[in-house]
């Protein structure tokens, strides 16, 4: 992507895990296409795949169980200097700040998803909206 290039994806999926592969692979392709990124592009491609997969998994897992037609929306926006991922769910939400870091001396099966997102990206926020919640992830592309 040249530095002036503008790239955007917006996807709406049913709350089914079979779509994770599609969402993750969009991230993988985007990473490989970011020609101006000076770091390791294979690693970036994996990280975008992973972060999108983890965030979408959480949104699916904690979606509105009362609505069989519930959907998750994922948007990815590549700007000149920054990549912004937004994942919208219609579940009850949670408080991101209270989620602890995994205890690596006593590894557990769960609780690694947000750790990956926080570690591999630059900033993460989770906010209530009128009709759901939004997880917003940012990463500088320099």
């Amino acid at each position, binding site marked *: 992507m040249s530095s002036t290039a503008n790239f955007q994806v917006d996807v709406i999926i049913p709350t089914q*895990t079979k779509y994770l592969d599609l969402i993750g692979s969009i991230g993988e392709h985007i990473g490989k296409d970011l020609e101006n990124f000076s770091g390791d592009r*294979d690693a970036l491609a994996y990280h975008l795949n992973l972060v999108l997969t983890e965030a979408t998994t959480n949104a699916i897992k904690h979606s509105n169980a009362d609505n069989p037609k519930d959907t998750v929306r994922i948007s990815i926006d590549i700007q000149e200097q920054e990549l912004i991922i937004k994942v919208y769910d219609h579940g009850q939400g949670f408080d991101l700040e209270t989620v602890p870091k995994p205890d690596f001396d006593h590894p557990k099966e769960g609780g690694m998803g947000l750790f990956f997102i926080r570690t591999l990206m630059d900033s993460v926020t989770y906010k209530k909206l009128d009709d759901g919640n939004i997880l917003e992830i940012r990463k500088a592309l320099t």
Partner: protein
Amino acid sequence: MNLTQEKISGFNVLFVKDGRIDAHNSADLKDYILRMIEQGEINIIVQLEQVRFIDSSGLGALLSGFKHAEAKSGKLSLSNVQKQVLSMFELTRLNRVFEIYTDLNDVFESNN
């Protein structure tokens, strides 16, 4: 999930044939390993050569297998872990939990 199992030189080798382990198929992997252990196959090598991508639920499935094998005095180890996949084990320090072999030859040589 596409899994095949082979007994090689006394080891129970589980080949993961899918390129991707995520929340869509990790429960299959976890259940398969737990059934192996229930049937007494407590020394397991999971061969990950085909796996290009693993998420937190995939790491969790392997960790679950490790713990159950250990509880029966067995061991679950890994082989042929691709570069980017390996970095996920490093990031979560799970490389200190699992024994990770370069390939199956490495397993057999190290255990002789």
